[in-house]
């Protein structure tokens, strides 16, 4: 028995989240503890400030983009369901073997869905293309002030050239998947949750 409250989550909710995301019962209750500890205002939702209070996230160059991924269009608060839905993308794929349900839709943490999640982190305006500007934005966030504009521009151009197959000077989702064929997405976009 810890000293933190974890009894405010009802059993039905836990079951629903389990079905939707694939997390186990104990993982969900543990993550709920974490959610409540981040929720300073104690109103059942997290705001952007609550995330920015995490020091390790605040020093992450792409921290703001990651925080954005939790908030659906135009909203400022995320509840526990939304929190879990976003985290579910990072579940390891091999965990799915246990609850294989052939009639269920593709799980949130499949390879394609992980890549789609990463794609949306680049593609801010959601037009299903990563344009040169969007790529430059992310690059600038990652390198800070340490690389000149020209050099960064040439890096972006080279990346688009290598990936672009239909000549529209931007990267579509299929081209994105093609470029990352050899990357071990399962390992690089998964967090090892302890049971």
């Amino acid at each position, binding site marked *: 028995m810890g000293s933190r409250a974890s009894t405010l989550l009802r059993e039905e909710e836990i079951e629903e989240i389990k079905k939707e995301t694939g997390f186990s019962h104990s993982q969900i209750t543990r993550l709920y503890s974490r959610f409540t500890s981040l929720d300073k205002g104690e109103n059942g939702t997290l705001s952007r400030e609550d995330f920015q209070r995490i020091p390790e996230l605040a020093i992450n160059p792409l921290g703001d983009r990651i925080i954005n991924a939790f908030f659906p269009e135009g909203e400022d608060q995320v509840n526990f369901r939304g929190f879990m839905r976003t985290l579910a993308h990072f579940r390891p794929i091999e965990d799915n073997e246990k609850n294989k349900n052939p009639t269920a839709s593709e799980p949130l943490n499949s390879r394609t869905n992980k890549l789609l999640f990463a794609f949306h982190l680049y593609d801010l305006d959601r037009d299903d293309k990563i344009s040169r500007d969007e790529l430059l934005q992310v690059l600038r966030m990652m390198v800070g002030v*340490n690389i000149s504009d020209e050099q960064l521009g040439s890096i972006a151009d080279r990346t688009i050239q290598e990936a672009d197959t239909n000549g529209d000077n931007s990267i579509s989702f299929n081209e*994105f998947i093609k470029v990352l064929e050899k990357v071990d997405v399962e390992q690089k976009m998964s967090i090892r949750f302890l049971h």
Partner: protein
Amino acid sequence: MLFVDYTDCCVRGVTEAQHNRSNITVCAFLAQLDVRKLLQGRVFSQSTDSALDEELQDVTFHTAASQQRSGDDVTSELPQLSVMEGLWCVAAGVFQVWMFVVVFLIMLPAMFGVSLGVTGVYIQVLVKILEWATIRIQRGQKEQPGVPVPLPAGIIERAAGSMEEEMGQLQSPRSLEGGHFALSDAFYFYKKGMESIVDDQVIQRFSSEELASWNLLTRTNQNFRYISLRLTVIWGLGVFVRYCILLPLRMTLAIIGLSWLVVGTTLVGCLPDSSVKDWLSELVHLTCYRICARGLSATIHYHNRENKPQKGGICVANHTTPIDMVILANDGCYAMVGQVHGGLLGVLQRSMVRSCPHVWFERSEMKDRHAVTSRLRAHVAAKTKLPILIFPEGTCINNTSVMMFKKGSFEIGGTVHPVAIKYDPRFGDAFWNSSKYNTVSYLLRTMTSWAVVVNVWYLPPMTLQQDGEDAAQFADRVKSAIARRGGLLDLAWDGGLKRAKVKDSLKEEQQRMYSSIIVGQRAVEGWSEDTEQQ
């Protein structure tokens, strides 16, 4: 228990407090009542046992006054005065017993540094009960899978590689001179970001540690889960013992201790400066702190006492709670450092300073770092003064880790005597979460916990090395030594993150590291030199 339906509810209090199988002692006013009438007609007793009624009739009544008990002679009118007299003699009796216990069993031994061993036995009994309770709960948890088990290792298992290693794995053909960017590089940051959202090292340090076992202290309904009747009874009993027996005793002791400190130091302060004065002042301080420690049922184990801080030195320790000062001062005299407060604390500070020199700063002085450092330096340089006690973390941390030591304390010079303090979490939560509890509620919580069991390790003295080590590195070295000794996690994060935001320079460092991976170290350095020249 008897609930006596009588207009004077003081009777209830008296009979409840003094009911005893062999004899009941009540004061004069009860003898004037028709007690038999009461017992037969208007008593509502909890048990319907008829044997109990018979027993009550066998009860003997003694009177404090000369009036004899009369079975059926009753005067139906009670003078109000004798009710109060009765109350007073009861209260006086209780008070006498109380003071006897306090003075002879606690105060006098404290003055001479002798322990009666009561606390030791108490702790052993507590440990047995806690172990039993934990086993019961674990059994209960197996039957109810819904109860969450706190994992000591955390929710996730993190990859231990550095940024370079992880990036290298992401894209195998990366040239040594300077790699180039790949779309998958961002994955490293996404994963790290998500991991820190799920479980980070810093935020958990600012709230109480989660225990793997139950320490019979869970207070609110949210945390209390019904596992079995026996456990609930024990928990209820625990609450009663803590609030009704331990708390008043401890408050008495705390009040006595603090008032003795004020009175004693003022008296000693009247003496002229001499070695006698120093010795007396030490005695007064030690006695008072020992009484306060008894007031918390504190069991302190000191290790390596040969390394105790000497005069003219600086004592640094990890900070968990304001009680740290009491814990350390039980074994030696220190010069405290702090801000001048008003109110009760101000009275304490002013009287303490009369008998031996402490260092109290005005609020305006605290802002000027040089003034602070020079004053402390002057204190240390006078080798006859007591060692100063500083907590370089600057804020209370929850005793699972040691956070960044502020380098200001290490610029003073002199010998640094590190001390590691570790509280045993099974008996009570000593950490002061200042955003959740204010001082008064924190003291109340501490005084109603079972005990404070703490290990104090004195480490060998350390000094600034002359080979170019600066104050910040020295601070880190001392911090690591303390963390290792106390079994705490050594973190480089600043305790000030409790309230302040992270410095931008840390983010910039991450960005620099990444840039040097994709364009090569020399290119980054060349570019930053160019920008600086502009």
